[in-house]
Each structure stands twice: as C-alpha cells, then as structure tokens.
C-alpha cells in the first residue's frame, strides 16, 4: 500500500511538473534532397544546435514569467515549390509558432506568394504564418508579404564594398568580365542586378559576360570568350559545379586573370571539394567566417550536431537567437489556445526590429524586412577559405 502511495505521489509530482513544462515549437524547413542537400542538413543542425544552447541556458521566458524550451522540427521540401507550399500549410496546422526557411529561392517566391500580403487585410485569404528565412537569397523576396522576413546577406552592399575595396587595393585593375549561370534564379540575378551594376558603379569597365546553364559541362566557347575579353577581373556568378567546370577549362586554355571573384553561396566546402587547386585565389564576400568568439562557438556547437558552419547555416543559428529575443520582448504565451495570437506577436516583433545581433557583429534590419548583415571577404588558399579582409 505504501509503495502504491509513493508511486502515485511521484506520478502526480512528475505529472504536475510535466504540465508546467511548456515548449515552443519552431519549424525549420529546407532542401535535404538533390544537389542542395548539404544546405538543408547544415541548416537543420544549426537550428537544433542553437535551440540546444538556449535550452541549456534556461529556455525562453514567457509572458507569465515561466520558461519554455524550444523544440525544433525540420521538414525537407526537396527544393520544389509544391512541397514547400504543402509544408508551410502543414506547419500552419501544427502548433509551431514560426517557420525558419526555405533554402531555395524558387521555393521562397511561391511560398511567400501564398502568405497574406498585408496583415489585417480581411479580404486576403493568404496564410497568416510568420516565416523567417535563413538561406534563400535571391534579391527582393521579403517584399512579397508582410509575414515574410529574411536574415540573408545583402549582395548589393557586399559586392559594392568588395569592388570598392579592390579598386583601392589594386588601382591598376580596370576591367571586369562576367560568367553567369543563366537558368538559376539566384546566380542570374546576382550578375545582372548586383555584380555588373556594382562593378560599374565603382568605376570598373564591364566588358561583357559569358553565359551557361546550371548543368552544363562544356565551357570551351565561354572560356574562349573570357580569354578574348582579356579582362583584369573575371567574376563568376555560378554555383560550385559549373564554377569548377569553368575554372578547370580556364586552366586548360591558360586563362589567368589578375583577380577572380565568385558568388556568395560558392564560398563553401563544395567549391573546395570540387576544384580546390583551380579555385586558388578566388575572392568571395560572405556574411560568416569563424573570426569572432561567438562565431567560433557557434561553428563548434553546430559541428557537434553534424552540420558545417557557413554563411547559410549560421544565419539559421542567428535566427533562433533573434526569435528568442523577439518572443521574450513581445511576451508570448506558448499556450496552444493562443497560437494564432502568438504567431502574430512574433511577426509584429520581427517587424519592429531595427537591428539584431549577428555572429559577425550588429545586423541592421531594413524597412522591407530584409537584413543588412556585416560581411567580410574570404579567399580560397591552399584548400581552405581564409579571411582576406575584414571591413569591420
């Protein structure tokens, strides 16, 4: 009898303690399939790692003074619009308070399109779910909906700064020639709207550009064009596979420009794995390198969860901490019955932010829900990315 009484007492105590333990669900989603699989894997690891750190430090403070732990659930959208939309609807049906993702810009665009365009527009039946993007980087997407927020680097600012710095450091260098992946939303926009524009704005002569497609394998014609242009700087706005193909062809044809500039997302392990030798010396602006104490710690913790730290996954890490800050300042309840109110509070909190704390320094938040992140320039040297210049 005594044993039963003790057992019942323990169960009751555990039960009530359990009832007091609230969790805040954050849904992560991204591409864990195909050539972009590493992005999803790293984002997931970063999200879980960041949540783990917060939970170990006591979790998130709720409006009523108690604390709640963060639980992360990650969904694979396979970089397709249909699955992305299906996932966000699924997330909406769970008790997740906010969604972090997606990886692919071609998913972000339609996904933002099904969100409510303007908050409080009763005639708009779009989904009312805050989405805080970590990776999808194509310019100008958060504008699509007032529920969409992004923590991705501003390529215009970064390349402007890079070309300015190159001009001051190498004044003899005058001309730029580009190479563009035409059929991928991000790389295409990054050449025409960003690199070309910013190079010209900083006094470079843009001789022209060569084009190829994302799964092309023969670059002999394009590299011959690059050779004939004989520009001082060759800027390659493409992802690792074709970047490596072009660089290897350049080696074959003996094309050696004075400087090589690459696309932000190619400053990753992929490029080094594909063509470390040929990529030697390529300069890329990035919004993450483990140069600060916080950055190094984040990279180490993420590695424990089997993820690599780069500008994309570290944005996911930052997102969790920003969301903690927002949730605490807006005072959410983590109560299932107040779910939609909590979501609205997160959205409003994100909209109010003027700046956030990033791993490289302070990030400014812009009017159209984008981020102006601190950045630095890295260079491929001896099979590693080393910091070339830190403008901070």
């Amino acid at each position, binding site marked *: 009898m005594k044993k039963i009484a003790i057992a019942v007492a323990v169960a009751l105590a555990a039960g009530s303690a359990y009832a007091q333990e609230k969790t805040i669900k954050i849904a992560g989603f991204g591409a864990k399939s195909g*050539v972009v699989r*590493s992005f999803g894997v790293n984002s997931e690891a970063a999200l879980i790692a960041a949540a783990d750190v917060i939970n170990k430090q006591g979790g998130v403070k709720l409006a009523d003074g108690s604390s709640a732990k963060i639980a992360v659930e990650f969904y694979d959208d396979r970089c397709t619009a249909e699955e992305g939309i299906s996932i966000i609807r699924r997330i909406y049906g769970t008790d997740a308070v906010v969604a972090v993702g997606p990886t692919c810009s071609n998913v972000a665009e339609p996904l933002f399109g099904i969100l409510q365009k303007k908050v409080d527009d009763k005639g708009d039946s779009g989904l009312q779910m805050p989405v805080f993007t970590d990776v999808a980087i194509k310019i100008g997407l958060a504008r699509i909906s007032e529920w969409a927020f992004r923590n991705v680097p501003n390529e215009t600012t970064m390349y402007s700064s890079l070309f300015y710095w190159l001009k001051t450091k190498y004044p003899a260098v005058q001309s730029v020639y580009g190479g563009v992946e035409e059929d991928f939303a991000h790389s295409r926009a990054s050449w025409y709207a960003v690199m070309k524009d910013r190079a010209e704005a900083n006094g470079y002569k843009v001789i022209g550009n060569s084009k190829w497609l994302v799964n092309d394998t023969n670059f002999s014609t394009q590299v011959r064009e690059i050779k004939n242009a004989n520009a001082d700087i060759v800027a390659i706005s493409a992802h690792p596979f074709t970047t490596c193909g072009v660089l290897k062809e350049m080696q074959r044809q003996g094309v050696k420009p004075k400087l090589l500039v690459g696309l932000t997302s190619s400053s990753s392990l992929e490029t080094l794995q594909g063509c470390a030798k040929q990529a030697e010396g390529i300069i890329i602006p990035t919004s993450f390198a483990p140069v600060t104490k916080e950055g190094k710690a984040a990279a180490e913790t993420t590695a424990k969860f089997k993820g690599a730290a780069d500008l994309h996954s570290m944005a996911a890490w930052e997102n969790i901490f920003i969301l903690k800050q927002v949730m605490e300042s807006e005072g959410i309840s983590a109560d299932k019955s107040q779910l939609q109110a909590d979501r609205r509070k997160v959205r409003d909190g994100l909209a109010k932010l003027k700046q956030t704390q990033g791993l490289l320094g302070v990030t400014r938040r812009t009017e159209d829900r984008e981020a102006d992140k601190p950045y630095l320039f890295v260079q491929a040297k001896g099979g590693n990315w080393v910091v070339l210049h830190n403008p901070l």
Partner: protein
Amino acid sequence: MLDFLQTLSDGVLFGAIYALIGIGFTLVFGVMHKINMAYAAASVGGAYAGLLVLKAVAAAPAWMVFFGAFLAGGMLGWLVYVTCFHFIPLSSPLAPLMSTVGMLLLIDEVIVHLTAGMPQSYPAMFDDVMLRFGEFTLRGDLLLVFGISVLAMIGLLALLYRSRLGLATRAVAQQPTAAQLCGIRVTRVNALTFVITGLLGGLAGALIGASVGALSPLLTTPLTVKGLIVTVIGGLGSIPGAIVAGLLVGGFENLFQQFRGVTERDMYVMLLLFAFLVFRPGGLFPAKS
C-alpha cells in the same frame, strides 16, 4: 573563320562523350529492344563507385579509378536487369519502363545521400594535354575518350557479330520464343548483355567525370536526354551510328550556342532531332528490317 573551326572542333570533340554513352544506349534500346531509362544514372553511379578506389588506395592513378568504375558499372547493370527486367513478364512493356525510372530515382538518391549532393572532383588522364596548332587547340583528354569509343565500338561489333553470345543476344532480341526453342538460355543471355553494357556504361561515366572534372548528380538528366537523342539520330541499334551521331550532336550544339546563345541552344538541338524524325526516321544508319 578560326573561331568557327575552333567552336566546331570543340563541340565535336566534346561529342565523343555523347558518343560513348550513346553506344550503350543504342545497344540496350536498339539491339535488345529494352527501354532502360536508368542507363545514364547507372553509368554515373558506376563512376562514383570508382572513387571508392581512392579511399582504398591513397593517390591511386586515374586508370585504377576508371577500372573500378568499369567493374561497378557492370554490377549496377546486373542490378538494373534483376530489378527491372528479370521478373516482369514481357506482356507488360510499360512496367519495365516505369521500373527503370524507379531505379533512376533510386540510384540518384543513393548518390545524393552518400555525397550530400556535393560535386566530387574526378581524376583525369591527359587533362592537361592540349594539342596546339598555332591558335587552334584540341583537348587531349577528349581525344582519348574518342579513341576509347572507337575501341569500344570495335569490341562490341566483334562481340555482337562474331561471338556466340552476340548471336544469342540478337536472336533473343528478335525472337525470344524461337531463341528459347533453339536452346538459348534467355535469362542468362539478357543478364550477361546487361552486365556488358553496364561495364561500358561505368567506363563511360568515369571518362565523363574525368572530362568534366567533377561528378555531380546534375549529370544524370542531361546525359539521359542526350543519350536518347543520339540513339535516335544515329539509328536504333547502330553502334557506328551512335558514334557519328554523338559527334554530330556535340558539334551542332556548340555551333548553336555560338550563334544563338546558351538559352536557345537546346531548342535547336531538339529541332535537329525533329528534322531527323521527319526526313530520316531510321536515323543515320537505319536498321535493315
């Protein structure tokens, strides 16, 4: 003029890759009359498996990796045979088609899982060899690929027309029941032929990886589409046709790119295919019926 010649020769040389993969396609589709949509995927898969040689033997020479790919291709060829052709009755022609699509997806996914989708640098032979004639250059490694295509063609023609296995393969493809009545073990012949085309496919995959410089899952779809186009243009079942068609498609592709740009290039390749289908449906070397 030089520009035009260089573009043409660059394209034709790159077409050697299409020729090599096209030979396997035309054997499978044309000689065996089997639709194997997984052929390019299995070839690329074999190439990836070849990289395991580098794990076992540090700094192994390129030809060892190619040999590993060659063997792995054969194994994958056999696997595709067993999963898609062995158990499915002949009375349902659509089922093997769909089954090979399933294998294509499966092989692709396995590759993505094991490599996290990242491009893998591939060892090459003669990739730094450039034959120069003044301003005009020819890639040495692609000449090697072309040479191997020709050797493969000679070997396969000898196999098909001078050996018992070749005779049996052709018999089984044309009249399976009659062949069986003659005492030919149909399943064994089919399995063996799939292994042989798989061996060639693995080697093709390795050489493609070497020529491109890196392997990526992105290679599968374009190789499948090009392989099919080359098979049709060359003539179903014609091995010399596949080689000529491969070089032709490579050359035209590069010329279209030169004159109309990269975004319209493939549309013109499709138009080339349609031109053949309309004016010469049997292909360059039509099969004698």
